């Protein structure tokens, strides 16, 4: 298009020219900037060098001559100080490694060497292929923080055993840790008995994984339990603290069973090992729950010792139809919180879930993470969904 914009008067053209020239001059100038070379005052420099030599003459220090390092395979957990130096480690790093080991440190994998203070990555890369640590089993997972606490587990044997009679060495060879073994022995010494394999789970320190691995080998000889005169209190749980061992006075007629959902306090009292106190507790617990759906729940009654429960267990039966249920999606705060299997926190979440815009289906409600899977299984019989 026609450009009246670009037509300038003579004065303007001169102005433009001078500005352009100015810019070009500035550009040329920028190339002339050079860095001045530094001229040392030779006198001063010589004096300086002389002084330094004198100082060093006064203090002969073995200069850290790094010998030509030859690389060879080594185990950082066993290697000696001088050998480290010959590999090219600086004194400092070598000293740190030795210190670390003397304090109980262990290098589980090559990479943990990098964390030694003073270790630089370039040098590490050089020597990394020569680091040989045996027992590569732990190469990947173990953190270096508490070197003393992780003790490798020896291979365990596998044979059937009765936890009530197995000796200490047998337990150890089965793979039980010292702690668990001691706990089992203590428990037995106090008169404890394992009536069923699952009771082993209750021993302090027992993990589910380990239990699963030995569960098949557990063989309990039921014959040892027929003598019911030797009931002692086995576990000092918080429930049973302070309780005295009692010999049951009453004899329960053979064959009679108690229906736990409908039994009254007097009927509970009649059971051997149960008196007024426990009867009231059991009934009170039943009210709170809204009824039992499994006999095992009776054991959860306040302060009821496990031994007593085991004793009366054969006499109990349950009619689960009489449970009082509620709908957690519509029930009020008090009802939900009242239930022993539901904590205050969980009740709060239930109330929150209730406020949802659409009433959730049962699946949604149950998948919202209020309860863990185990808790949910435990409390599910009390829920009634529409």
């Amino acid at each position, binding site marked *: 298009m026609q450009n009246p914009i670009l037509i300038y008067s003579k004065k303007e053209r001169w102005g433009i020219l001078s500005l*352009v020239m100015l810019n070009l001059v500035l550009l040329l100038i920028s190339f002339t900037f050079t860095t001045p070379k*530094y001229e040392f005052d030779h006198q001063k420099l010589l004096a300086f060098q002389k002084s330094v030599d004198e100082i*060093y003459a006064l203090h002969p220090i073995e200069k850290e001559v790094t010998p030509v390092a030859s690389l060879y395979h080594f185990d950082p957990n066993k290697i000696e100080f001088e050998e480290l130096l010959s590999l090219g480690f600086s004194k400092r790093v070598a000293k740190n490694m030795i210190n670390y080991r003397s304090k109980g440190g262990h290098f589980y994998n090559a990479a943990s060497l990098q964390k030694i203070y003073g270790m*630089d990555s*370039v040098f590490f890369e050089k020597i990394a292929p020569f680091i040989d640590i045996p027992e590569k089993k732990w190469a990947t997972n173990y953190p270096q923080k508490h070197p003393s606490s992780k003790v490798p587990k020896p291979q365990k044997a596998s044979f059937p055993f009765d936890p009530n009679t197995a000796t200490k060495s047998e337990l150890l060879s089965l793979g039980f840790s010292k702690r668990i073994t001691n706990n089992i022995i203590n428990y037995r010494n106090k008169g404890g008995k394992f009536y069923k394999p699952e009771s082993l789970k209750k021993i302090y320190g027992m993990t589910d994984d380990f239990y699963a691995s030995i569960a098949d080998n557990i063989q309990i000889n039921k014959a040892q339990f027929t003598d019911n005169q030797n009931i002692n209190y086995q576990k000092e749980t918080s429930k049973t603290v302070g309780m005295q061992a009692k010999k049951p006075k009453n004899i329960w007629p053979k064959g009679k069973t108690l229906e736990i959902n409908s039994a009254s306090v007097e009927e509970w009292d009649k059971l051997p090992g149960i008196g007024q106190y426990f009867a009231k507790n059991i009934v009170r617990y039943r009210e709170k729950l809204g009824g039992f759906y499994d006999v095992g729940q009776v054991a959860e009654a306040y302060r009821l010792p496990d031994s007593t429960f085991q004793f009366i267990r054969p006499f109990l039966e349950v009619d689960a139809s009489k449970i009082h249920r509620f709908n957690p999606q519509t029930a009020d705060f008090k009802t939900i919180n009242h239930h022993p299997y539901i904590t205050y926190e969980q009740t709060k979440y239930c109330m929150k879930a209730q406020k949802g815009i659409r009433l959730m289906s049962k699946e949604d409600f149950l998948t919202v993470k209020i309860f863990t899977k185990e808790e949910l299984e435990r409390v599910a019989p009390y829920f009634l969904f529409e």
Partner: protein
Amino acid sequence: MINWKAHPFLRLLLPLIVGIWLEDWLRWTPSRYLFVLPFLFLPFFFRYVAFKVAFRHRGLYGLLVNLFFIVFGFVLVSYRPEIYQDNHFGKYIDGDNYLVGIVAKPPTHKTRLNALLSIKEIITNNATHAVRGHLYVSFPDTANIHYGQLIALHVKPKPFSKVANPYAFDFRRWQYYQNVHYQAFAKENQWIVLAENQGNRIANMAFRLRKRFQKVLHRIINNSRDVGVASALVLGVKDDLSEDTKEAFSSTGAMHVLAVSGLHVGIVSIGLRYLMLAIFGRAKARRWWRLVFQLAGVWFFVLLTGASASVLRAGVMFSIVEIGLALDRRASIFNSIAASAFLLLLWNPFLLFQVGFQLSYLALSGIVFFQPHIYKLWVFESSALDFIWKLSSISMAAQISTFPIGIYYFHHFPLSFFLSGMVVVPAATILLPFTIVVFLFDFLSPAIADFLGKALAFLYHLNTEFIFRLSHFEWMKLNDIYFSKWTVLLCFGMIGSIGAWIISGRKQLIFYVLGLLTLLSLERNVLKYQSANRSEIIFFKVPKADAIGFISGPHLAHYDRDSLAQKKWKYATQALKIRYGITQETPLSEKVSSPDFGLVKANNFWNYKGRIIEMVPPILPGPRDFKSNIIYVTENLDTNTLSHLNADTILLGNQVSRKNAEQIKQFFLERDVIVYNLREEGGWIIDN
């Protein structure tokens, strides 16, 4: 010049920006009553509103308005940093504390997992306090942390450490503008998750949706590079982007496509506008229906991409622009842009200092301003070519208004932006809606989605391949450019003048342009002169190593003890080298001296142009002819030997333990010696 009356918000925006910038520069801590200041203007406004402003008083009124917004911006920023709030948890910290907080943003993954927690409670020795504030926590990378979790921690919150080295990236400052002031380091077993899904419900839904769509993308696209690009483009997920992908896009000027921002929201917004026109027809009466659905679609997209700051910003921007257009087609688009900036700054004044905000608005203003003029320069008969030219002109317009800031932050200028723009922008325009359509189909029938997905994957592949091929042309990447703040200002001045020249047609404006150019050349000369005559010693803060740099002009000689890993050195010095215009780098070995350079080494002593640095240990007691200027301590020292140290300054190197550093500091407290701890204070420059 500019018709201010047509753009009222622009008039209000400028003083607001001035006020915000002013307070950030001054950093006055707010007094209790500072917030009263803006209210003092009320009587004047009332008088001028209730009674009309006399024409002769119009200047005063205008001045008052401007002053009001300056003060308003000032006050806005004064109270903004959360540490000034009454119940910020910073007030209760004493060493190790128990804190309870909610994960406020999806965590990011680097070597460790970093999450931002919004703290709700802190437990000190005596009591539990309900508090506010954000904490940046670093978790081990195997931790299972995600958005919305309620976490209890047992950690030691600390303020961020000062910037590690001169001109290095200042993390503390960056976090300051994110309004986060404390960080903590969590080791294994120092936290437990109390609850899930505590965050915003809408955000939760958006993140879930995003995860789902990510899976769809992974299913459809097989090439890992392309998947990363697709995730970033459509979903704003940067985790799958590899370093070379980022490098390739960045060096070809196509990076803006990978960060979901104005471009993407714009594509969605405009795309939806056409869709609404098609569905509802062009009737003016229907425009509100069109607007409602258009905005709903835009905000759904915002949610989908995780509603990050830049996307929210773009969302607000386009919403206001569209509302403005619906209200009155004749209204100025500049006004809408300024209005959206105004609102966003009211909401968070720190946005002004964030790169994304600056680039967004500059780019958009540039496009709106320059694109029509560039487009007019060339007319094509073929509508296809015309379309391509239209897009190119947009790309060029955006580049004109953003390159100064781009160079300022990123130190490079990709010449190939022109080519890349011509390909990636149309590609994004097609790929973005197409991908969303595929997502929607996936809800109905994954089979159809897979079928369409094949074409989609192919298109993505073409796009990514093109960028990678383009990035092989090294000559197109101009790197290591340093722009100072003055340079940026002068550049913008020039751009503004050129713009004014074009718009108004006043040819005298060429003098402004040339005048500014001259100033720019002058400034560049000053920088070059400084660079050539620079003589400095820099002591770097590098983890577990020591590095000293000697600078003479554009030449950097550096001495590393225990040979520093390349990566650490690069990280500490990259920005510095660009700033100083370093063209030559020489590593020094133990034996070398370069008297020409000004550096002489004698055993453990360095003499750089007369300044003497002594490396300690070994400690050398006894009389000597000279006094060392600086003693650089490389390892822990026995406190009994400290009295032998004799120098003006004692520098504690990176391998001195904290305890020992304290001891040394204590020792020299009474004597007239400066003790500088590199690990605490950061790198140190000495002019020599």
